[in-house]
């Protein structure tokens, strides 16, 4: 049985077919172009797991029925937002969304499809955070969304996503007993450091340096030491609560669009 299957291996069967027809076949079915394209995308985006990237890419090619927002989302999440190619991806996703039909004659990115994309981007965040973010970045449903607004909002979303992820890891390291709950005194100490750091304005150089010191391991260690020395049990703090609070201090820095 297994021996029969070996027929499927090219080395044994390729010789019967003229190579030329294989070439024509790949050319005719556009496989060549697709492979060239995906290879280019992989090199540009350098995904951490190229196999998953390939699977997602081909899945997206086959599933034409997936919505514009889903496709735009896929393009945006192809790479990390610190990479130069992110800019290109955002541009691509904006172009994709421009195919959105507003009414019979009009196509373009309006507030509703834009909000949908923002919500899709924030799907893994606590819902209260998403609501607050969308409130800040909101455009009216009938409004046309220009590219620069689109770009900066998407960027804010991506940074927030990573910020929330880091906050989660921070919580995990505060959760010493690994029970899903951390000591409130410790959480508050870290949160205070974070808030003071985020509270610094862009122009105040001294405070920026101070805050980066405060968030460095040594600064945090001192703050945690102080919190522990006070030795008062204030109860516990859950992961979601911690993340929400951390995100709130981030959101305070996001300027309202309108």
């Amino acid at each position, binding site marked *: 049985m297994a021996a029969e299957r070996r027929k*499927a291996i090219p080395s044994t069967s390729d010789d019967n077919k003229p190579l030329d027809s294989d070439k024509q076949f790949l050319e005719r079915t556009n496989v060549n172009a697709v492979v060239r394209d995906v290879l280019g995308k*992989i090199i540009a985006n350098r995904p951490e797991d190229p196999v998953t990237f*390939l*699977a997602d890419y*081909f*899945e997206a090619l086959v599933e034409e029925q997936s919505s514009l927002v889903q496709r735009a989302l896929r393009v945006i999440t192809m790479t990390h937002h610190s990479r130069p190619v992110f800019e290109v991806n955002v541009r691509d996703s904006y172009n994709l969304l421009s195919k959105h039909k507003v009414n019979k004659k009009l196509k373009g990115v309006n507030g509703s499809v834009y909000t949908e994309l923002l919500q899709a981007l924030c799907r893994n965040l606590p819902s209260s955070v998403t609501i607050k973010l969308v409130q800040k970045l909101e455009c009216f449903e009938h409004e046309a969304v220009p590219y620069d607004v689109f770009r900066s909002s998407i960027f804010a979303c991506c940074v927030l996503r990573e910020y929330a992820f880091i906050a989660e890891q921070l919580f995990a390291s505060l959760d010493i007993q690994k029970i899903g709950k951390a000591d409130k005194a410790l959480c508050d100490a870290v949160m205070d450091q974070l808030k003071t750091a985020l509270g610094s304005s862009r122009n105040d150089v001294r405070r920026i340096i101070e805050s980066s010191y405060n968030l460095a391991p040594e600064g945090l260690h001192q703050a945690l030491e102080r919190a522990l020395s006070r030795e008062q049990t204030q109860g516990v703090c859950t992961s979601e609560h911690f993340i929400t609070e951390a995100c709130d201090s981030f959101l305070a820095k996001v300027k309202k669009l309108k």
Partner: protein
Amino acid sequence: MTLKEDRFTMSADRYLAKNYVIVYLEDAISQLLAHREENPKVEPLKYLSQYFSSLRDGNHTMFREFSFIKSTSHSRASFVRLFWKCFRQIGKKGDLLSIQEYHSLLGLLCTDFPFKLVQKTARIVLIDDALDCLISFTDFIYAFQVQFFYEEFLDKCSELYQTLQQSSQSPRDPVIVPTSNDQDAGGAHQSNHLPVDGVDSIAFFRSVYPVCDRVNYSTPPVAALKEILFSTPRISFYGFLMAIAKSEAINEHIGRLPPKMELLEGADIELTSLPFKLPGTRSRPPSGTVTQRSTSSGHGRASLTQLQPNSSSLVRGKLSEKANRIRSHRQLALETSDESDDTSSDSSDD
């Protein structure tokens, strides 16, 4: 972690090679072309999509040639998992098999699977002697996993071990002297008394350490090796391999097999759904294996699984038939043989 950071700075060629992108793309195309000969109306993009999603889910190794399975670490680990999925019932029944029988089971999934690898695996379980002993499924699969997944690393370790052993047997004993400072007196003391049994494990760690994460083949995490080698003053080579095979941290690092306690649990769910998970791969190789996704994520593939119910049950039937034959043969042998055979393999079980 450091390797992950590097991926943006390394050259495109290096990045592609490190992740085997070209290997997979080339294989996908050649599979597609081979598939087209029997099915001229194949939709290439659909086929490629199925190929890559089965690759992502680790269901791409069934009935493939050994050279392909061996070519990437992802494929190696996926193959070990496939072996576990298919023959878990042997472990559940508690049967003990000989290495020839394990080899024929592997041959069902990969026709040209080399016997040498099974032999090497048996050496780990049986600590390098009595290769005709029977081995339990649990022992076998974990040893097989490390032997197959870390083959190059283990070969390198063997080399280092021999060098170390030779140098430590010399009267001057240059390797062990410095370690007596940070080790307690016991370590040095023992090394004087047992010069042939194994090598100083700290010294061995020092020679293995430079290899870890700095070569282009897979190596176990350094922390796990530390745990193994720092817990005992002296270690023999096969004792070292056995410890690697038994290490839960290393198993977790490879990330395909469940921990030992759960290895044979929950088998019934998977087993009953196995007929749908092993569809005929002759006419549509990767697409068939796509359906072997775990049940939790398998809803989207339901339609695919129903495409070829006949051939799938055929394959499944043949596999279990073979397994049953081996099992019944085993039982006969056990019944007729005296207990000595049985107890010797039981002791290797633990």
